């Protein structure tokens, strides 16, 4: 029974320049206690994917097709009040920039207690301040912050980036979601802190049985804690499979190029192989396969028609090379 099931999802933005199709017929699943890494460049639609699961798309976006089934409920056609109910307690999303993630004018304790209060309201529990405070302290300890009482009395600007991200993860834990969506949670942090936060997420996944959807542009980060990896390009799924599989033997040319373009710091003379070309115009995307202008293996059919998904040995690839 999967926590998240996305089928043929289409999400469009209406902009002054035209209609932008940010997600084009995307299908994938996230199972219980499973973590899936969503990897792609800026503009690949990965952030939009995260926002669309929790119904936080901006006003100029719309669900133009397909479905998102979160814990058995259809998200795209819900009313606003229903969406409000499932947000947070079913799926919780955390964002990239720690400096802007917490309300600067309120203390940490206020903001965390508010999360508990809202959860109680949604799940029909009674809210008791003392009990809630104890729970908050416990969760702050869970995210490996020493001296929870001290942190609670602080304002966000008095915390470091890593601490803020942990507090937000604590906030997520307080809401007890089935799915945690993390949009570039470590991109703004130092490398050492990055590793700590990722390990924390991994441990919590095991402790709480929480599923994780990790959105990142850094494929090595995805490899770090994901069970499966999905590679996105120009709003489409181009490859999906187990983390080991995708990294060791990528199938789609884009995935291959992505992995090859990671600087191999250890070997000095290893060639740097950037992907030629630039990201596509999402309002007037290329015809046929959206990757074809940059693909080293491009064939005639790639230019004419969009390739369909090929399912092969537990992997999904969208490329004419495989069928």
């Amino acid at each position, binding site marked *: 029974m999967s926590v998240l099931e996305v089928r043929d999802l289409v999400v469009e933005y209406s902009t002054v320049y035209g209609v932008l199709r940010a997600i084009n017929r995307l299908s994938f699943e996230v199972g219980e206690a499973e973590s899936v890494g969503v990897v792609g460049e800026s503009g690949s639609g990965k952030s939009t994917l995260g926002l669309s699961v929790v119904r936080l798309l901006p006003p100029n976006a719309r669900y133009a097709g397909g479905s998102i089934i979160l814990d058995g409920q259809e998200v795209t056609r819900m009313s606003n009040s229903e969406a409000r109910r499932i947000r947070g307690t079913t799926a919780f999303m955390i964002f990239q920039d720690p400096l802007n993630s917490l309300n600067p004018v309120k203390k940490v304790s206020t903001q965390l207690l508010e999360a508990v209060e809202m959860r109680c309201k949604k799940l029909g529990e009674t809210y008791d301040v003392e009990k809630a405070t104890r729970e908050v302290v416990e969760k702050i300890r869970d995210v490996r912050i020493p001296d929870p009482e001290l942190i609670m009395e602080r304002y966000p*600007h008095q915390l470091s980036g890593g601490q803020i991200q942990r507090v937000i993860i604590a906030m997520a834990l307080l809401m007890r979601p089935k799915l945690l969506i993390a949009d570039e949670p470590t991109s703004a942090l130092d490398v050492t802190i990055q590793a700590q936060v990722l390990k924390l997420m991994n441990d919590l996944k095991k402790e709480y049985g929480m599923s994780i959807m990790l959105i990142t542009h850094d494929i090595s980060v995805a490899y770090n804690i994901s069970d499966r990896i999905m590679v996105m390009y120009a709003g489409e799924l181009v490859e999906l499979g187990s983390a080991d599989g995708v990294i060791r033997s990528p199938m789609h040319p884009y995935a291959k190029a992505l992995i090859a373009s990671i600087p191999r710091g250890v070997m000095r003379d290893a060639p740097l192989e950037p992907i030629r070309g630039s990201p596509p115009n999402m309002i007037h995307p290329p015809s046929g396969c959206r990757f074809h202008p940059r693909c080293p293996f491009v064939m005639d059919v790639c230019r004419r028609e969009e390739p369909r998904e090929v399912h092969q040995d537990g992997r999904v690839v969208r490329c004419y090379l495989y069928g």
Partner: protein
Amino acid sequence: MQISTLIYLVRRVINAVVTLLLLIFLIFVLVHTIAPTPVALARIYCGSPHCPPAELQVIIQQYGLSLPLPVQFAHYVVNIFHGNFGTDTLYKVPELQVIGELLPITLELVITGLIFAVIIGLFTGSLAAANRNNPVDYTVKAVYLVTWSAPVFLVGFILQLFLAYELKLLPPSGLANPTLGNPSPVTGYPYLSVVPQPLQGWLSGLVRAITSPPLIAAAVDGDWRFFVSGLHHLVLPALAIAITSFGVVTRLTRASMIDALDRDYVKLSFMKGLSKNRVVYGTAFRNAVIPIITLIALLFGFSTAGAVVIEDIFQYHGMGYFTVQAIYNLDYIAILAITIVVGISVIAANLVADLLYGWADPRVRLE
């Protein structure tokens, strides 16, 4: 109170005092540049442009105008701190007395205008932010462009013409119904004896100052007829001032709200499940409003400048009206006194705004 907050407060106060001293210095320099010789200075202090030389000499002696400049400056500063602004040429009473009677009236007008401007600005700004790039947004932008560009006197005239004369909704001029007697400020204070002796003077002065504005005096006195009439007469002038100045508030509120609504903590609030209203008018607004506080000082300056013109049009007998008279009569002493008093008020308003800002934004007071 934490140490850092205390330090913040002290720094702000010192800043205000220093700016005030510099302001006085600036005025001193300007006056002495315009009138470099003791005789020229005496002409200024004389009160009328055609002063007999004998009287000029008397003035030079009296005000010590031939003393070396630093000494004069020291005297000047000391005088100002004692409230000695000289004797008004028209009314022949100490300038301070005239200002003391008229300033509260104008302050009442200016602060009311400021409050109106902030309210109108916050409302229209939020409206524009919520309806970005929408006809509502464009209308708001057009409105504040026009009101910002209109000279104060035009707004005053139009309001007076339509609301007072044509529609007869509100009175066109005056402080209050002239048949009613003016209320007086509170001079006696029953619990005064409780306070130690030296403080009594300051306290009674403070109480007197606070209860001087006509509306407050009327309320304290229980004179409700005057209160209502005064309120009636206050609306149009305050509205005129507010209309010309709300534009900056609208602009900043709109930008600030748009910025705040984009922030991740707003998304996080939605994530917790707060209702849209609570997030927009609670979290986002609370954060967006902070920069507006810095506008208060600017608005105070505008409103004061506008008050000069508005009091003339509406025959509202406060400091502004007095300024117009002083200009007409070339009453230099009064004009200098008014300038310094206005400067002090603006600096004080700045200080209040700084303190408010420190209260509202923890990032500033907790370094």
